[in-house]
C-alpha cells in the first residue's frame, strides 16, 4: 500500500467503540466455585479427616498416607478456585484473553475438593496413585480413538466409525492372539482390522461422496453386526478362539522410581507405552512434517492442495485408512491389553466418547488427549470412590463426564474451529 493512500485519514480515530465483553467464563467459574466450595465445606463435620495415600515410587519411603483436615482443605481449594474466578473477571473486564489454564486450575481444584469431601471422615484411604494410573489405562482406547479422529478430520474426513474401528481391532486382536497364543501377534493384527474399516469409510466417503456421518454411523452398525455374528457362531463355541492372552506390564527401570509420576506413568501395560509414542509422533508430525502439511492442506482447502499438485483424494484415502489403523490399535486395549477374550459390543460406546474427546479438545491431538484423560479419570473415579465406600449413586458419577462435555461444547467449544473442509467431498 502506498503512503499517499493513507494520508489524511486518521484510522480508528474518533469515538472509539469497543467490542462487547463476553462474561461467559467468569460467570461460569464463579457459579461453579460458589456451588462446590460452599456446598462441600458446609456439608463437612468439623473434625473430619480425609486420608489420601500416595505411592511415592521409592521403595524406602513406601506408601505414605496423608491425613488432611477435610473442611480446611476444601476451603483452601475453594479459595484457589475463587482466585482463578476473580482473575478471569479481571481479565475479562480489561478485554484480555482468558487463558485456558484458568478454568483448568479452577476445575482441578474443585475436583480435588470434591474428592477430599467424598472421602472425608472415612476409615479407608483414597488411593490417589492408583486412581491416576487406572485413569490413564482407562483412557488408552479413548486416546487412540481421538487421535484417529484427529488424523481423519484434519485430512477432511469425519470419522464417526471410531467405535467400529475399536471393536474390529479388539475382535481381530483377540482372535489372532488366541489362535497363536501370542498377544503380540494379536496386537499387530488390531490396526489391520481398524484399517479395513477405515478402507470402507474412505471408499464410501471419498470415492462415492456419501455423507461422512452417515457412513460412520452405518459402519458402526455393520461392524457390530459382523463381530456379534462371529461371536455367536464361532468364537463362543470354540475355545481355540476364546483363549485369553495378555500383553505384559512393563515397569521401566529408573523411571518407575520417580515419585508419584513413576507409578502413574511407568508401571503400565505395553499398549500404554505404544500410546505415548504414537501421541508424541503424531503431535510432531501432524504439524511439522511434509506428511502433516499435505494432510492438513487437504482438510483445510482441498482445491489449494490440488493446485500445487497434491493428490487430494489419494491423500484422504490413505490417511483415513491410517486413522482407522490407529483406532484399531486402540481396540487392542479391550482384549489383549486387558487380558480378555472378545465379547459382544465390548467397546461399549467408547468410540463415541473418543469422538467427543476429539471435538472437546478442539481438533488438536494435545487437547484431545487431555479431554480423553478427563473421561478416563471420571470413569475411574467411580472405582476409586467405591473402594473407599462412598455412596454416591454410581449413575451420577458415570454421567459426570458426559455432562461436562455438554457444558464444554455449549460454553467453550462453540467457537472452536474444525478443519474448514471437513466432511466435504472433493470433486475436483
Amino acid at each position, binding site marked *: 500500500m502506498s503512503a499517499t493512500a493513507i494520508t489524511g485519514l486518521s484510522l480508528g480515530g474518533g469515538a472509539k467503540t469497543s467490542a462487547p465483553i463476553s462474561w461467559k467464563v467468569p460467570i461460569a467459574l464463579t457459579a461453579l466455585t460458589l456451588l462446590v466450595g460452599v456446598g462441600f465445606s458446609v456439608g463437612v463435620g468439623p473434625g473430619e479427616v480425609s486420608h489420601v495415600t500416595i505411592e511415592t515410587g521409592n521403595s524406602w519411603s513406601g506408601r505414605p498416607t496423608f491425613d488432611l483436615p477435610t473442611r480446611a482443605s476444601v476451603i483452601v481449594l475453594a479459595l484457589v478456585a475463587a482466585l482463578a474466578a476473580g482473575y478471569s473477571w479481571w481479565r475479562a473486564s480489561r478485554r484480555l484473553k482468558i487463558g485456558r489454564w484458568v478454568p483448568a486450575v479452577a476445575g482441578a481444584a474443585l475436583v480435588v475438593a470434591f474428592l477430599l469431601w467424598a472421602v472425608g471422615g472415612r476409615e479407608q484411604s483414597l488411593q490417589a496413585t492408583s486412581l491416576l494410573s487406572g485413569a490413564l489405562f482407562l483412557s488408552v482406547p479413548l486416546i487412540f480413538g481421538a487421535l484417529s479422529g484427529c488424523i481423519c478430520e484434519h485430512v477432511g474426513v469425519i470419522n464417526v466409525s471410531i467405535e467400529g474401528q475399536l471393536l474390529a481391532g479388539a475382535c481381530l486382536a483377540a482372535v489372532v492372539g488366541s489362535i497363536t497364543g501370542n498377544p503380540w501377534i494379536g496386537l499387530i493384527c488390531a490396526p489391520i482390522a481398524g484399517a479395513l474399516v477405515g478402507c470402507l469409510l474412505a471408499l464410501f466417503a471419498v470415492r462415492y461422496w456419501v455423507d461422512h456421518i452417515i457412513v460412520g454411523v452405518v459402519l458402526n452398525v*455393520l461392524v457390530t453386526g459382523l463381530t456379534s455374528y462371529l461371536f455367536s457362531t464361532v468364537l463362543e463355541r470354540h475355545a481355540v478362539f476364546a483363549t485369553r492372552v495378555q500383553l505384559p506390564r512393563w515397569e521401566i527401570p529408573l523411571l518407575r522410581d520417580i515419585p508419584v509420576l513413576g507409578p502413574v506413568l511407568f508401571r503400565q501395560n505395553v499398549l500404554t507405552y505404544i500410546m505415548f509414542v504414537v501421541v508424541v509422533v503424531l503431535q510432531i508430525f501432524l504439524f511439522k512434517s511434509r506428511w502433516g502439511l499435505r494432510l492438513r492442506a487437504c482438510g483445510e482447502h482441498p482445491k489449494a492442495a490440488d493446485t500445487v499438485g497434491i493428490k487430494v483424494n489419494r491423500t484422504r484415502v490413505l490417511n483415513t485408512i491410517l486413522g482407522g489403523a490407529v483406532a484399531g490399535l486402540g481396540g487392542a486395549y479391550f482384549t489383549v491389553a486387558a487380558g480378555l477374550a472378545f465379547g459382544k459390543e465390548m467397546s461399549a460406546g467408547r468410540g463415541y466418547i473418543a469422538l467427543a474427546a476429539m471435538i472437546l479438545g478442539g481438533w488438536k491431538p494435545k487437547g484431545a488427549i487431555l479431554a480423553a484423560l478427563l473421561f478416563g479419570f471420571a470413569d475411574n473415579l467411580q472405582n476409586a470412590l467405591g473402594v473407599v465406600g462412598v455412596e454416591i449413586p454410581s449413575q451420577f458419577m458415570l454421567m459426570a463426564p458426559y455432562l461436562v462435555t455438554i457444558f464444554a461444547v455449549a460454553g467453550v467449544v462453540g467457537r472452536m474451529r474444525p478443519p474448514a473442509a471437513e466432511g466435504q467431498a472433493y470433486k475436483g
Partner: protein
Amino acid sequence: MSQTAPPPTAGAPSPQTQGRDWRAVARRVAQGSAVTSVLAVVVALVLGAILIAAANSQVQATAGYLFARPGDFFAALGRTIADSYSALFQGAVVNLSASSAGDFLRPLTNTIGHAVPLIFAGLGLGIGFRAGLFNIGAQGQIIFGAIFCGYIGFAWHLPVGVHLVLCVLGAFVGGALWGFIPGILKAKTGANEVIVTIMLNSVAAFFLGWLLTREAFRKPGSSDPLSPTLDASAHYPSLFGTRANLGFVLAVAAAIGVWWLMERSTLGFAIRAVGANPAAAQTAGLSVAGATVWTMVLAGGLAGLAATSQLLSTSAQQLNSDVAGTFGFDAITVALLGRSKPLGTVAAGLLFGGLKAGGYLMQASTDTPIDVILVLQSVVVLLIAAPPLVKAIFHLPDEDRQARKAAKQARLALRTEATA
C-alpha cells in the same frame, strides 16, 4: 493495511457454508432409482447368505471334503441358505405352514409391532435431517419418553381411554423435553448437536438406571431394577384381535401429520429452508434458532412416542433399563433409507421391522444368530447411499452419474466465471 480492514479470507469456505446440505443428501438418496434399491437388497441378501453359510456347521463339514463330494457341499449350502431365508420370510411376512388365518398372518403383525417404534423415531430423525440437524439422540429421547409414559402408566390409575391418552402424551412430552436440550443449546450457543445428543443418550440411560433403583420406580417388594407393571387401562387396544395394536394406526397418523407439517405448514417451510440454506433463511427473516428448537422438540417427541409401542402393548410391560433397545440407532438407518420422507420412513420401518421379526424366527429355527440382520441393514443403507457402487457391482451403465457430474461441473464453472 494493518488496523481495521477486515481481511477477506483466502478463499476457504466460510464457517456458515459448512452446514450439511441434507437436502442434497436426501436428493442423492432419492436419485437412487427403485432398481438400485432392489439391487442393494439383493447384494445385502447375498452377503448375508455367505455369512450364514460360512457359520453353518454342516456347510463347514462338507467343505472339508469339497473336492471328493462337491454335491454334499452344495446341497448343504443350498439347504442352509434356503432354510434361513425361508425362516426370515416366514417370520416377517406370512407363516406358510399355518393352520388358521390368524396364524398365517401373525408374522405380519409381529413385523408391524417391531416397525412401530422404528417408524416413530425414524419420522423424528427425518425432520431433523431435513432441518440440517444430525440428531443421534433418538435413543435418549426414547428413554425419556419411556420414563414419562411408564410412570403415568403404573403410578396413576385412571379410566380407560384417558389413561392411554395421557400415557401417549407423556411419552411425547418426555421425548420432546430431551430433544429440547440439544435444540436450545444449538440455537443459543451453537453447540454441535451430534456431540450433545450422543452425550445425552448416555445421560438418559444412566438416569433411567438410577430411577429404577428408587422406591417410586421400583416394583414393591423387589430389588430388581424393574418398575411395576403398567395398568391395563393404558394399553393400546388390539387391532381386529391381532397382535398389531392402535400404535400402528398412530404411527401412520404421525407420518401423515409429519407430511402435512413439512409440506403444507409455515413451520415446515421454515424447517426445510433452514435445513437447505440457513444463511438464506436467516436473511429472509425466518428464525433459524426457532426452527432448530422446534425441530428438535418435534423429533424428540416423535422418538418419545416410540417408547409407547414397548410400554403400552398388550403383552404387559414394565419399565426396565433396556426399554429403548437399540431402536434409537436402528431408526437412523430407517430415516436414511426412507430418505427422510414420511412415506419412505414408514416403508423402511416396515422393512427393518420385518427383518427383525423374521430374524428372531430364523435364530430360533435355524441356528443363525439374529446379528446377521444388522449386517443386512447396514449394507442396504450403505449401498443405497452410493448408487454408483451398486451400478458398478452389476455393471450397469451409470448415465445419471455422468450427467450429474457434467451438470455439476457446468454449474461450478459458471459460478467461478460469474463471481468477480
